């Protein structure tokens, strides 16, 4: 009986993992789903919105697109819009971003001495989104007790569900 429960739990976890990894491959992005953390893209996106990204190399970066990028040395990805691009014949591209709700472009956010972003800084391009859903992630981050409560409830549910 216990053996069966453990197996079942393991199946759920590995299925979830497979789906996540599959998504990563299909979209080409290391983080195909991200949560919007700041209000810098309002009124389009608000804190807690969930974004779906793709990062296919064949898709060129063009102005107006919403990109999710990381600044070297920083963990937190930023979601802003591309304001300028300069692309060379061989495909090398450097671009500048700005949040819709910010008065100035992102040069102040980049690393010291860094004036442009490059392809390697991009996590993905926003292709679709769902509002509000990501609030759960933000809550779990800001209130660790909430996170433990959720995990505890989940564990309880899985165990109790087996008759």
């Amino acid at each position, binding site marked *: 009986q216990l053996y069966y429960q453990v197996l079942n739990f393991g199946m759920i976890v590995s299925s979830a993992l497979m789906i996540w990894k599959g998504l990563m491959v299909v979209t080409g992005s290391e983080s195909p789903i991200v949560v919007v953390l700041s209000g810098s893209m309002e009124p389009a996106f608000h804190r807690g919105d969930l974004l779906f990204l793709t990062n296919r190399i064949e898709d060129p970066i063009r102005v*107006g697109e919403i990109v999710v990028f990381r600044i070297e040395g920083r963990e937190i990805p930023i979601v802003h819009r591309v304001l300028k691009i*300069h692309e060379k014949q061989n495909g090398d591209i450097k671009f500048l971003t700005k949040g819709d709700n910010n008065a100035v472009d992102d040069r102040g956010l980049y690393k010291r001495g860094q004036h442009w972003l490059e392809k390697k800084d991009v996590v993905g391009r926003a292709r679709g989104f769902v509002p509000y859903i990501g609030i759960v992630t933000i809550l779990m981050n800001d209130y660790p007790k909430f996170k433990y409560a959720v995990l505890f409830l989940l564990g309880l549910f899985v165990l109790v569900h087996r008759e």
Partner: protein
Amino acid sequence: LRKNVEDFTGPRERSDLGFVTFDITADILNGKKWFANGLNIFDWNVKQLFLYLSAEYSTKNNALNQVVLWDKIILRGDNPRLFLKDMKSKYFFFDDGNGLKGNKNVTLTLSWNVVPNAGILPLVTGAGHVSVPFPDTYETTKSY
């Protein structure tokens, strides 16, 4: 979609800086949706439109350059018809180098990002575009 522009350039250190003034007359419709009284891009799932005017051109340094000169957010409920005259660009039109001088092939296009309440985020390009040739000399008499 129609735009009329005039332009000047001024050198700033090592990079060309372009100045463009423009008029925008735009009536944004979504040709795919048919209703009894007309066409409307603000369907049930559209929260806002993010409009932007971009300049696209090639230079010796870079095969493709795109610079957003101006943008505007149109919220659901706002009037989607625009009659803007004598607008100055919102953002500095710097080139990466000196590729604006004498560049006859700078194209301005109006595009927009449709932001839904939930779902896909498409980018649409407007039907009209205008070519803005830059002069061969720098403007030194005007101050901005």
